[in-house]
């Protein structure tokens, strides 16, 4: 079944998609990634069940994605007090393992950034404990997979075909008049396959999950700055794939830039100076972020 999905995918690849093929690596076929997800780790046979029901780290700890490290620590300790094998007995072992893994990832800055990107929350870090989230709009059902569904709302004609075939995955945004992914893999594979196939304008794409958050963020209409009555309103990039590529490149450059900045400013400073610096850098970052948006507007507006 999964094999038959592949050619359809290629056929349904729209123009925009073919140009920016970097978002979709044809070699990572659907069948292959599915194999990867379901591979039994040789040592984990008995725990296959628990791996399947693996929760998002944030859900596991019961904290929101933008929680501070302090919050995460508190939540972790509270849960450990309930489930640690010292208290819960040997049955707490698996749970404590997951807690430790989640804690380790979320408490290590770069691991957390990577993890957030992988689950669809692009975070831009500001200061030590502040995270600004570029949130993807769709949630995930079941384990994370390397590929996700994305509806190019610019192309969508609002025909409801996909909603009809896979109602748990797609919804129709009545105000915008176009379809959107509500839950990744909300229906079984066959239903999703049919719904992708049924789209008359081929606007449903398989994209890498790393790109998903950015795409979903950019496809949301943003308030356009107007001059008096003119030019005001909502807009979004005409070519969302290109826009995502540009934005991610700029974010990466910015991150590198910040990194090199951090290295040079390791001299000692007073708390007041530190505060001032933190405030200033926060401001700069906010500005540069809005600049990115503005420049995107210029390119695609």
């Amino acid at each position, binding site marked *: 079944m999964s094999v038959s999905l592949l050619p359809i995918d290629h056929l349904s690849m729209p123009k925009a998609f073919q140009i920016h093929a970097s978002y979709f690596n044809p070699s990572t076929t659907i069948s292959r990634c599915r*194999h990867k997800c*379901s*591979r*039994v*780790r*040789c*040592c*984990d*046979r008995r725990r296959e069940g628990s791996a399947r029901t693996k929760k998002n780290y944030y859900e596991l700890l019961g904290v929101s994605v933008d929680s501070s490290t302090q919050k995460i*620590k*508190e939540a972790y*300790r*509270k849960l*450990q*007090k309930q489930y*640690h*094998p*010292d*208290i819960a*007995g*040997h*049955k*707490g*072992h698996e749970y*404590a*393992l997951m807690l*430790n893994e989640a*804690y*380790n990832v979320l408490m290590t800055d770069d691991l957390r950034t990577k993890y957030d990107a992988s689950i669809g929350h692009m975070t831009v870090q500001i200061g030590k404990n502040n995270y600004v989230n570029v949130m993807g709009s769709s949630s995930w059902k079941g384990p994370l997979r390397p590929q996700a569904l994305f509806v190019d709302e610019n192309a969508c004609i609002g025909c409801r075909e996909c909603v009809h075939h896979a109602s748990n995955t797609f919804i129709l945004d009545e105000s915008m008049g176009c379809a959107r992914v509500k839950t990744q893999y909300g229906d079984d594979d066959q239903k999703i396959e049919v719904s992708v196939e049924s789209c008359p304008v081929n606007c449903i794409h398989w994209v890498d999950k790393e790109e998903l958050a950015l795409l979903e963020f950019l496809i949301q209409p943003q308030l356009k700055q107007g001059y008096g009555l003119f030019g005001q309103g909502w807009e979004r990039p005409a070519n969302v794939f290109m826009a995502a590529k540009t934005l991610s490149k700029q974010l990466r450059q910015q991150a590198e830039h910040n990194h090199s900045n951090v290295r040079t400013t390791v001299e000692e400073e007073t708390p007041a100076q530190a505060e001032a610096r933190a405030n200033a850098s926060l401001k700069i970052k906010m500005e540069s972020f809005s600049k990115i948006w503005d420049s995107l507007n210029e390119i695609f507006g």
Partner: protein
Amino acid sequence: MAEPQYTVASDSETTGEEKSSSAFPETAIGIDIGTSKCSVAVWNGSQVELLKNTRNQKLMRSYVTFKDEVPSGGVSNQLSHEYEILSGAAIFNMKRLIGRVDTDPVVHASKRLPFLVQTLDIGVRPFIAALVSNAWRSTTPEEVLAIFLVELRAMAEVQLKRPIRNVVLTIPVSFSRFQLTRIERACAMAGLHVLRLMPEPTAVALLYAQQQQQTVHENMGSGSEKNALIFNMGAGYCDVAVTATAGGVSQIKALAGAAIGGEDILQNMMQHLLPNSENLFLSHGINEIKSLGLLRVATEDAIHRLSSQSSVQVDVDLRNGSKICKVVTREEFEEVNLKVFEKCESLLTRCLRDSKVDREDLTDVILVGGCSYIPNIRNVVKGVCKKEELYKVINPLEAAVCGAALEGAVASGISDPFGSLDLLTIQATPLGVGIRADGNSFVPIIPRNTTMPARKELIFTTTHDNQTEALILVYEGEGTKVEENHLLGYFKIMGIPAAPKGIPEINVCMDIDASNALRVFAGVVMPGTDQPMAPFMEVRMPTVDDGHGWCAEALNRTYGSTLDLVTVQKKM
């Protein structure tokens, strides 16, 4: 007494399975077996209580004397004089000897003790014997420890009026897993079941967590996080831990430890007082042992006095024609033991670095153990931690056993209506575990200071074309080369499908549970398939037995590099 002193309740290496049985109706007692002194504590329903022996001692000397028909230990035995321990009939310092092979420098240092420690330097268990009516009677550190534990158990049973089975024991951080099995073996010989083996500073950390929680309850304040550094130095071992504590949860951030302690300081001082002492006592004649005993007692006394005085007069007649009359100043003492202090400093620095806690963020610095009275040790700790004051509300000699008793109550499922047992220790691994790969390298799979329980896996591959078998050598330690680490066990993976080198994926997974039991899983997966090619292996470590110093060499001689593995770099 016709009955044997101890019975072997379980001789199996793997006592771990029964550990998992959940309901422990009785409160486990906490035992701190020190190199020089032992103590027992128990949660009595409202607080931790230290048990006293019939002579009203809370701290009992750790030794077993074989002088009489039946061996007797420091719990029940009435000493006429300190010299009795040093007569050759008593074995002590068993904590420094247990689970060590005769190539170990710590065993070599123990040759200067008044009983017999014989080494052949080939990696087997050293020969240990006590002098009984002018004959060397052989024994083992495990046996000595077991006899001692039987006495402790009997004492506790009389006082608590119930049979004792479950115990929480404190152990040094630097103990290898093989040494832990020896401790478990000794407990099994004494009819005790080890609920937890707790690194000493983490037991102190738990006591600290309880104290902090109580002060929070009293002040009705919010339980903010407190970082504490615990430095524990006794007669045999030095341990450091950094813990983050909040709301009764003690989270161990980093551990470090080494086999240095008061015994080394004592030996250095003896060497300083009598420069040729090393050679003098190696023959272990009755007169030499007597002289050695006299010197030891005099030196010990001098060291104790140097903690409060700046210089002491040592006057001792060794009765072999030589007399020592010397004034020792504190400066001399510090110079003689410079290496010991340096080692302490490096342990402290390493532990702080590993914990990723800034010195400024340390709320408290806790100093415990017998050596905590030495002024220079206090200075070293204060200096490294940049703290003027040390944590005061803790008894340096009783902290570890109190922590063990708390852990015993928590792990036994006892709860306290006043929340005094609303505690938890989240332990970290003191040493890394991994396998041999990439030639002679040690590839850690679970690095040190990983939060327990822990599970990690790594993928390896074959080094030869059509290699059908692979040897998994499990090591524990910190060295980059396997020789620098402890061998824990070995097994062979069979049924690797014939393929060019680098193709089969050998997945090695390690799992450490909360009671510190290590299991290693290994199996072969071919790229493109879902299922392991052959049934995977599950091995409980350690599997090595006494004489394991030989194993690595023998394996190398028999197999060479034919069954080697290399690591697979993660594809990004």
